[in-house]
């Protein structure tokens, strides 16, 4: 019994850190409505800064705590700088574009950390005076963890005082509820936003700095921290600090208990399972409230059909490529076809359906595994296995979509992420069937398709066919119903459209086509593994491709996929700092063309048509 009690204490220590990161994210989202993807990077910088500051100040108690504080302040200052230099310019842009900008920031911050601190893990000092342990119920419990346990509630209390007992806090709360009204009342929003962003960043920095005695500074912390923080914020309810605290406690304790009772394998996904359950039962999170004010919803311009002639011409032009070269260009193009289809399928629900998915890679992966398993384990011929890919992914999408379409906005996005992580962890751990973390090998195309050109033509045909199908669907009554549901669910319902059903069908179709892309992907690589097909980074890639190309156009995802894949390939070969270059390129695009590449081209060259 006492061992369970100790594990609960361990859970509390973990929960404190989770809460600090999540609190900053929640504050920033509440006021600025920016989903700050770079929050994990700020946390990571907190650890690195603390490592350097404490190194400079010396490992005395004063030096240690001054170093922790200095790290938090430095990260807060960086946050203010980012807000002033970047975010201020894009508050008017679509929310997803802001997400893309903060994603670009994570790429640049990661390389900045690599450049300043190097790639090796840096194990920081322990807290002087708190190196030892305290006897708790007969077990040696680290003294420092007791401090951490106290920090969480202390910060929650301090934030509460700040928000409820100061004028600034009142303004922050007002802005969280209705920022237009706050602006109308003459509050200088600029500095309010900068202040909130700096505070949120400082909290992330503090969370990182406080971890210095517990874990080494390393470059992979950013993604790990951001996904944990998102989960906590969403489970607690976006914008609710007590909710975030409760969620952090819940997740911290459940993790510790899993380890205590010998279910350690579950810790790989337990937070996502918790999130899926919470969102299925309480769509607004534990303590979240529905957003009250939606003034002047953004009206999307009507979609325009792609020119059939142009599409045929481009497809034919692409089809001649193998006659000119048999080399690497084909390999790269096959990747581009796969990702273009993948991005187009995401765009189908994201652009026309208004449903953002953070977990679209699940369907790429289901398709890839479906095809791979049928070929390698069931001995199906390649054609049949490939044909089964969209069915497998579609079935998964139908199942998960049923839950997802009941939510909206960030909650929906996070539920898709939860499902994707659950699927990933099943593939990762089910050794006997999926080959575990190694995945499956030997998934090669049939002999007559094995040559690069033959597979290129297959990829082109399937990608073009898939995109054509999506396109047809968008301009059928179904597609119009889907867009009606996006723009005004109430009115759409009033004229007899079953919005949820339409969205569910769209989600399923989108998943199926992502699965087709996955099947192609598996056969083009000859192997399939959880990390290559359904990792979070794959989902993010797809999102970046769609946003980069432009959400409001049909060619956007295709151009975005081509540009992103090609950029990544070309830059990575020429510099060690390809992430930073890629991030800078994305930022430049975001700032210069807030409508994405194709959107910008259309605005520049197609203006006449639009007004006509």
């Amino acid at each position, binding site marked *: 019994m006492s*061992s369970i009690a*100790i*594990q609960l204490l*361990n859970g509390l220590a973990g929960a404190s850190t989770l809460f600090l990161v999540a609190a900053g994210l929640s504050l920033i989202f509440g006021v600025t409505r920016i989903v700050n993807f770079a929050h994990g990077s700020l946390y990571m910088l907190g650890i690195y800064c603390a490592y350097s500051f404490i190194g400079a100040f010396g490992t005395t108690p004063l030096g240690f705590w001054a170093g922790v504080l200095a790290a938090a302040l430095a990260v807060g200052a960086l946050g203010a700088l980012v807000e002033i230099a970047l975010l201020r310019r894009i508050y008017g842009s679509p929310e997803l574009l802001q997400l893309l900008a903060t994603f670009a920031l994570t790429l640049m911050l990661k390389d900045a950390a*690599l450049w300043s601190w*190097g*790639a*090796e*893990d840096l*194990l920081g000092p*322990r807290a002087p005076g708190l*190196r030892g*342990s305290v006897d708790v119920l007969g*077990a*040696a*419990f*680290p003294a420092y*963890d007791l401090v951490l346990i106290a920090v969480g509630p202390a910060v929650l209390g301090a934030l509460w005082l700040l928000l409820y007992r100061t004028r600034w806090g009142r303004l922050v709360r007002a802005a969280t509820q209705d920022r237009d009204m706050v602006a109308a009342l003459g509050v200088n929003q600029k500095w309010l936003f900068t202040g909130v962003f700096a505070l949120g960043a400082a909290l992330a920095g503090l969370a990182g700095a406080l971890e210095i005695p*517990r*874990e*080494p500074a*390393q*470059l*992979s912390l950013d993604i*790990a921290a951001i996904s944990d923080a998102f989960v906590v914020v969403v489970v607690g309810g976006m914008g609710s600090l007590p909710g975030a605290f409760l969620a952090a406690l819940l997740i911290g304790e459940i993790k*510790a208990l899993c*380890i*205590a009772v*010998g279910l*350690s*394998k579950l*810790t790989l996904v337990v937070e996502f399972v918790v999130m899926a359950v919470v969102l299925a039962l309480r769509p607004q999170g534990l303590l979240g409230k529905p957003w009250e004010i939606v003034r002047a919803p953004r009206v999307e311009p009507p979609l325009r059909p792609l020119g059939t002639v142009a599409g045929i011409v481009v497809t034919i032009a692409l089809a001649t490529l193998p006659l000119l070269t*048999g*080399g*690497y260009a084909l*390999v*790269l193009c096959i990747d581009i076809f796969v990702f273009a289809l993948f991005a187009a399928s995401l765009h189908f629900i994201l652009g026309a359906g208004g449903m953002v998915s953070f977990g679209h890679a699940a369907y790429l992966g289901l398709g890839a595994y479906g095809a791979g398993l049928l070929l390698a384990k069931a001995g199906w011929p390649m054609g049949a296995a490939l044909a089964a890919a969209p069915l497998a992914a579609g079935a998964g999408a139908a199942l998960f979509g049923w839950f997802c379409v009941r939510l909206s906005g960030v909650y929906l996005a996070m539920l898709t992420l939860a499902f994707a992580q659950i699927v990933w962890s099943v593939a*990762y*751990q089910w050794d006997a069937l999926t080959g*575990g*973390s*190694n*995945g499956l*090998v*030997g998934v*090669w195309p049939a002999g007559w398709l*094995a040559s*690069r050109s033959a597979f290129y033509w297959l990829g082109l045909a399937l990608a073009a066919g898939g995109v054509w199908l999506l396109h047809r669907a968008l301009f059928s009554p179904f597609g119009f119903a889907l867009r009606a549901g996006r723009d005004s669910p109430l009115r759409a319902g009033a004229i007899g459209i079953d919005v949820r059903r339409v969205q569910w069908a769209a989600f399923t179709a989108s998943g199926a086509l992502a699965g087709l892309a996955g099947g192609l*992907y598996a056969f083009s*690589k*000859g*192997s399939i*593994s959880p*990390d*290559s*097909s359904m990792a979070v980074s794959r989902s993010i890639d797809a999102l970046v491709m769609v946003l980069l190309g432009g959400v409001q156009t049909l060619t956007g995802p295709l151009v975005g996929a081509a540009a992103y894949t090609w950029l990544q*390939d070309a830059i*990575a*070969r020429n510099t*060690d700092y390809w992430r930073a270059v890629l991030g800078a390129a994305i930022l430049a695009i975001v700032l210069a063309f807030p409508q994405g590449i194709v959107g910008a081209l259309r605005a520049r060259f197609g203006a006449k048509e639009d007004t006509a």
Partner: protein
Amino acid sequence: MKKAVWSLLALAAALARPAAAQEPIKLGELNSYKVFASFLEPYRKGWQLALEEVNAAGGVLGRKLEIVSRDDNGNPGDAVRVAEELLAREKVQLLMGTFASNVGLAVADLAKQRKVLFLAAEPLTDKIVWENGNRYTFRLRPSTWMQTAMLIPDAAKLKKKRWAIVYPNYEYGQSATRAFKELLKKAQPDVEFVAEQATPLGKIDAGPVAQALADARPDAIFSSLFAGDLARFVREGNTRGLFKGREVFNLLGGEPEYLDPLKDESPEGWYVTGYPWYGIGTPEHRKFLAAYQTRWSDYPRAGSVVGYAAVMSAAAAIAKAGSLDSEKLVEAMKDLRVGTPFGSIVFRALDHQSTMGAYVGRTGVKDGKGVMTSSRYADGAAFLPPDAEVRKLRPAE
């Protein structure tokens, strides 16, 4: 006139041909330099040193060697694309490298499909030479199974009954755990495994894990943690007194890559496999150490030896084959003997595994740094299953 032109052209062609023969031999190298930097930066220095040595000695087949190196992002999908790029655009003669098991297996399968030699330098997975072994893939580093087997004699000698196990929850940790349980059970039938903790790779929740292991009251612990996970585990375990009065075995724990960051907190008396570069007296290693330190003003890590030996193996294979033809290279790799800093190794024709070994010893702290004391070389050849068993594991060609 026409004749003169033709003879001039013929002369030019004749001159051009030997010039073409002097072009360097291109080897394609791919690895996850960004993702596993602490292991792979020293690895890169190792292969660069070997490359310079080979070329200073006149190259191979009268031609210099050139290595085209790429980052594979630690992702099997990207790795296959990068490998295709090396083959199609750079026209490399063979592939080498990779670190993570899933990347290694994906590239091995590509090598089989494209019929090109692949020298898997780092991946530890047993499958790359056994279950998923293929004609074109050879592996340099001692595998998970081999390194685990190297720890078994010491583990069995202790006659500890209750064992707890902690491992990173992916193929490497799972295989190490499976092999350890199987081999120890064979050596000591009364052994009991009282707790097992599978921790997410890179995200160990060290406090609760250390506590759960302590609660199981084991006599000894077997761990296959490494890098950041190991550092966190050591810290929490030290603070919570988990290691007091318990024997601990840690696969790879003596590799400088993973031991050095722990500094004065390095555990004492752990049984580990690793690379005590400061305590190896063989002439081969002394020569390597001197050359490495002169070239890089730094000491070598385990990765350095692997990188160095990988290029030496590739050069030896090309020299033995006397040709760049993939099939001939594959034949040359079989039973190829190569001199490495660890002495002479052989790439077994039986399963394409090299007999490179590792050092086994116990950890200690010296001048505020973690070291391996009383280490001895465990020759890989002595820690492989019997041939008949290997034949059963590996598909026929």
